[in-house]
């Protein structure tokens, strides 16, 4: 076997190849770890927003009452983005010196746990709610406000959201964000909160019984409705109602 030593050494000298300085390698490591930290942070933010969005949509109730519709309207973009950040975080860790030592499944579970804890912290800090106006301005199709409209501003399907204008024992008058007034009939079987004061925001699930009239199966209070800029109120302008 002919030794390669001479040709290797000639190439090193000819191309003036030198060991990369420590700081270049350090920058690479810092870059990788920053990428990991950013992936976990964005993953957590995405997860926090996803939880906020589902919570705000009353997803728990809708999953029971209309599971297929709920699944078809699932916020896929946020779910896919969340998974993407998980994968990105895994990819960055794999490129660290000792990242290979952690088993894939253990790593995925650890990353989900870390992301979830961070997401809980972000939810507790109300970051997703504070971000909502910006997301609704810059990325309206995937904002929680838009999801709310898709699910809860469907009077013709018996799903309503609006402000209580007046309230009686057996009916309430509600005004939705389009300014339409609806009569909501309260029956003995209607699940409802004990008090329905004027000017609170509520959601109604029920059946259409007449023009602008719904018989309620369930009335859910919305403790903190989104603030909508006045110019955004009519849905026609925003392309929801053809």
């Amino acid at each position: 076997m002919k030794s390669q030593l001479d040709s290797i050494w000639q190439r090193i000298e000819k191309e003036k190849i030198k060991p990369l300085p420590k700081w270049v390698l350090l920058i690479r490591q810092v870059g990788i770890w920053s990428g990991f930290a950013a992936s976990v942070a964005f993953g957590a933010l995405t997860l926090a927003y996803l939880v906020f969005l589902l919570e705000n949509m009353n997803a728990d109730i809708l999953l029971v009452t209309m599971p297929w519709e709920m699944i078809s309207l699932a916020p896929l973009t946020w779910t896919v983005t969340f998974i993407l950040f998980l994968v990105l975080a895994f990819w960055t860790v794999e490129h660290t010196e000792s990242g290979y030592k952690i088993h894939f499944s253990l790593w995925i579970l650890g990353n989900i746990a870390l992301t979830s804890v961070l997401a809980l912290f972000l939810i507790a800090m109300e970051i997703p709610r504070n971000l909502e106006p910006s997301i609704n301005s810059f990325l309206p199709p995937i904002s929680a406000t838009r999801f709310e409209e898709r699910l809860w501003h469907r009077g013709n399907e018996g799903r309503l959201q609006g402000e209580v204008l007046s309230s009686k024992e057996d009916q309430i008058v509600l005004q939705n964000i389009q300014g339409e007034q609806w009569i909501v009939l309260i029956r003995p079987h209607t699940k409802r909160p004990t008090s329905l004061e004027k000017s609170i925001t509520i959601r109604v699930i029920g059946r259409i019984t007449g023009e602008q009239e719904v018989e309620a199966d369930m009335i859910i209070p919305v403790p903190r409705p989104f603030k909508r800029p006045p110019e955004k109120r009519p849905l026609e302008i925003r392309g929801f109602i053809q």
Partner: protein
Amino acid sequence: MHSDLELIQQALEEPAHFKELVVRYERPLLFFITRISQLSQEDAQDVIQETFITAWKYLRGYNPKYSFKAWLYRIARQQTIQYFRKSKRQPISMDSSTSESLLQEIASDISLEQNFDQKLLAEHVHKALQSLSEQARTAIILRYLEDMSYEEISATLQKPLGSIATLIHRSKEHLKSYFTKTIL
């Protein structure tokens, strides 16, 4: 004789010391590369050259906590894979002489019965190894022909220690069942 680590430290101060590392590992690397890929000697030497150039470039990135041999073999494996990617060729498994050496090393470890015809077995090793994945084949070669520890194989293949143990165990089971089915 200087240890690998001493040579690395000396090479970073006086580059000529890197030559000693080249001399030390050139031949084992050639065997390793040809065993995992069946490249011609000429092609394997190109891969070796790239391996040492890369090792030289990233020498300051080598972590003495890990085995230098494993680090170098990892680069060699990456360079081999890259070579095949560039040339768009498929790696071929090892030649029969390697199969025979491997069989000698592995036979007792996979508890093959003594009444198997050893020559017949050796003929089948070649085919049996082809049925393993590239990673499993490399792990078996590192374990039985390069005499690496599980830790070193783990560092070379960049897989967790537990996964390496499982990979080698499964590969051995696969080989045993392959031989049993083929020869009986």
